[in-house]
Each structure stands twice: as structure tokens, then as C-alpha cells.
């Protein structure tokens, strides 16, 4: 039992190392393959809770309100993030449509909601059976949610369009920028190790509670 608590295995190369506590804000690297072993962050749970709430507030206007309005030759046209998914869908590019939907609409929402629910449960010290599963899903989601890539694509499109039409920036555009910043902030404030330790703690406490009740 002692061996597993005093040692740590590098996730990149499986090297066994002595466990050292990292100073808050500092990173520990594996001496063999240079993978980050630990990156301790200050007040991770509280920060993630706050960031996920603000991200969720901006979510609906960011995805469903029009981003830009174009004026060209007496006509105008606008579109939201959700409309871009619909446009692929109407053009019968179903695979691309589903991928766009997942990466820019569904996973950002899922990721923020999962982080919100996990950090709220940890903050209020409540354990539900699904807690480890929810957090695991949130960690796996992170790779496939791409609002930040979408933002760069939006800037590229603006440069493409600006020569042929005049552009009005709508509320959705600013909400979307805010949403992107919040998703990036949640990733950088997230310290999985602290979360797992808290989940383990709450889990053992709650199971002890059940035994006492019996």
C-alpha cells in the first residue's frame, strides 16, 4: 500500500518516480521524456466553478444569435454558429454537419455543464455515484470541443468577406468571443489531480457514512 502512495508513474513513459508535491503554479516534468507530471493550480475548483457558470451564461446567445450581418448589392445576410451546422446539413454533407455540430455546438456545452456539475458537487462536498464518470467524460471532451479553432476560422472568413461586402458585427459575435475565452480559461484553471484527490476523499467519506448508518 505504501509503494503506491509514495510513487508516481509518468503518464508519458511509465517511469516510476518518487512523488513530490509541486508548489502551486509550478510544473513538474518527467526527467526521462519531459512530459508534465503535475501542474498544481491555486483554487482550481472554485475557479472552474466560476468560469463554467459565466461560460454557460454566454452559451445560448453565442451559438444561436447571429454573428455577422453582411451587406452587399442591396441585400443582407446573417448567420449564427448553429446556422453553419444547418447549412452543411441542408447541402446534404451529413458527416461534416455532424462533425461541425459536435465540435462547435454540442461538446462546448457538454464540457462546460460537466465541469459546472463536478465542481459544484466538490464545492458542496456532495458525492453522487456518477461523479467520477462525469469528470472522466469532461476530460475526454476537452480534445473534441473546438470553439477556439472556430474563432480563428471566423477571423479568416471576415478577412475573406471584407473585400466583397460590408460587415456589421452582431451580439452573437461578442458573446462567442467571450465563450471561447471562458472555455480556454476553464482548461487552464483545471487541475485534474486536485479534482481526483477531492473526488476520492468525498467518495471515501460518503461510503464511511453509509457504513455508520448501517
Amino acid at each position, binding site marked *: 500500500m505504501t509503494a503506491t502512495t509514495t510513487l508516481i508513474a509518468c503518464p508519458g*513513459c511509465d517511469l516510476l518516480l518518487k512523488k513530490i508535491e509541486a508548489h502551486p503554479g509550478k510544473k513538474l516534468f518527467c526527467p526521462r521524456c519531459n512530459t508534465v507530471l503535475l501542474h498544481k493550480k491555486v483554487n482550481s475548483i472554485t475557479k472552474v466553478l466560476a468560469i463554467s457558470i459565466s461560460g454557460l451564461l454566454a452559451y445560448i446567445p453565442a451559438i444561436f444569435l447571429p454573428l455577422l450581418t453582411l451587406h452587399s448589392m442591396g441585400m443582407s445576410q446573417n448567420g449564427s454558429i448553429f446556422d453553419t451546422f444547418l*447549412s452543411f446539413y441542408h447541402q446534404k454533407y451529413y458527416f461534416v454537419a455532424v462533425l461541425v455540430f459536435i465540435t462547435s455546438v454540442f461538446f462546448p456545452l457538454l464540457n462546460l455543464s460537466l465541469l459546472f456539475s463536478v465542481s459544484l458537487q466538490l464545492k458542496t462536498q456532495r458525492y453522487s455515484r456518477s461523479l467520477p464518470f462525469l469528470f472522466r467524460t469532461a*476530460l475526454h471532451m476537452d480534445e473534441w470541443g473546438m470553439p477556439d*479553432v472556430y474563432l480563428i476560422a471566423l477571423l479568416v472568413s471576415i478577412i475573406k468577406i471584407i473585400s466583397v461586402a460590408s460587415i456589421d458585427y452582431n451580439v452573437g459575435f461578442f458573446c462567442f468571443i467571450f465563450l471561447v475565452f471562458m472555455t480556454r480559461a476553464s482548461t487552464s484553471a483545471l487541475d485534474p489531480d486536485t479534482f*481526483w484527490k477531492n473526488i476520492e476523499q468525498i467518495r471515501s467519506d460518503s461510503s464511511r457514512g453509509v457504513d455508520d448508518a448501517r
Partner: protein
Amino acid sequence: MMPDKATAMKAGLMSCHDCGKLLKTRETVKTEVLTCPRCNAELHFRKPHSLTRVWALIITSVLLFIPANLLPIMRVDFLGTIESSTIMDGIIYFFHEGEYFIGLIIFTASVLVPIFKIIGMIIILLSIHFKWKRGLRHKSAMFRFIEFIGRWSMLDIFVIALMSTLVSFGGLTSTIAAPAATYFSAVVVCTMSAALTFDSRLLWDAS
């Protein structure tokens, strides 16, 4: 400095893929699925069938990469004249227009990144098969870089999505997607899945 580089596997310890918890393994339970007591994820010494799956995904993405670049990815209908353009056509257009920076971003995201991912993964896979022990540290760094850049190849797909939504003025000007969009997004999915399925610890097992 420890003289022997002991790995967790040699010491009979397993670390959880999902939460990193280090666990002792009992050799008796081989048939049933082991799960992590902390996060309930399935436990393995190494990700199961990692190499086979990564080879399959990489070969698939090489095959899909060919139509993704040869077929048109976007069609622009300007006053009835339809013009199709491939990924490279789009990039060349930007360079002609003098938008070098944007051209460079698109070129990096949709040409350099997929090629780099595919070649990089092939080098890593070959070095595991032939047990090359040189430059493992650099290969690890390269793998982490491949993991990091993977999602940025979606850039061009999002640009097409935005263009076809916003630039549609009825019969005057409209932009629609073309077949390569499907192939290209499939390349992105395959290469990203390959990076996620690959277990970088296999690189170090031979040393």
C-alpha cells in the same frame, strides 16, 4: 539519479489512464475487467491493441488525404458562373491577393499539419517496430506536439461552413461545399483518433 530506470509495469504496478492513480495488480485476476477504484475507468498496463489501431487509422487517413486534396472542397457561384476550388487553389488565391498571413495560416492548418501528423506517427510507429532507441526524448516531444496541433486542421472546414452560411445572396453570389469537405474532415477525425489511441509508453518499453 537512479541507476536502473524502473517502469511501473516492471514493478507490477498499473497507473490509471484516466486519473493517473497508481495501483498494485493481482496476477490472479486475468479474465475479469479491472477498474480503477477512484474513477471507475478500465485498467490496462498499456492501451489495448494500440499499435494495430493506430496503424489502421493512419493508413486510412493517408488514403483519405488523396481525394481530400485532389477534389474540390468549395464551389463559388458568382452570377451564374460556378468556380470549384481545391484546398491548394484556396491557398494560392490568398497569395495572389497579397493576403500572405491568412494564406500561411490556411496552408499550415490544412496542409502542413495533416502531413506532419501522418509522417510523425509513421516515424514513431516504425521506431517501435524496429526498436530504435535513438532520440526517444525528441520523439516523445514530437508526439506531444502532434496531440496538441491535431484539432487545428478543422480550421478550413469551419471557414467553409461560415462562408456557405454568410455568403449566400441568392442567384448573385453563393458559396457551397464540395465533396472534398467530407474526405478532409474524415482525415481530421482519423488523425486525431490515432493520436488519442496511441500509447506513448510503448515508445519507451523497448529501451
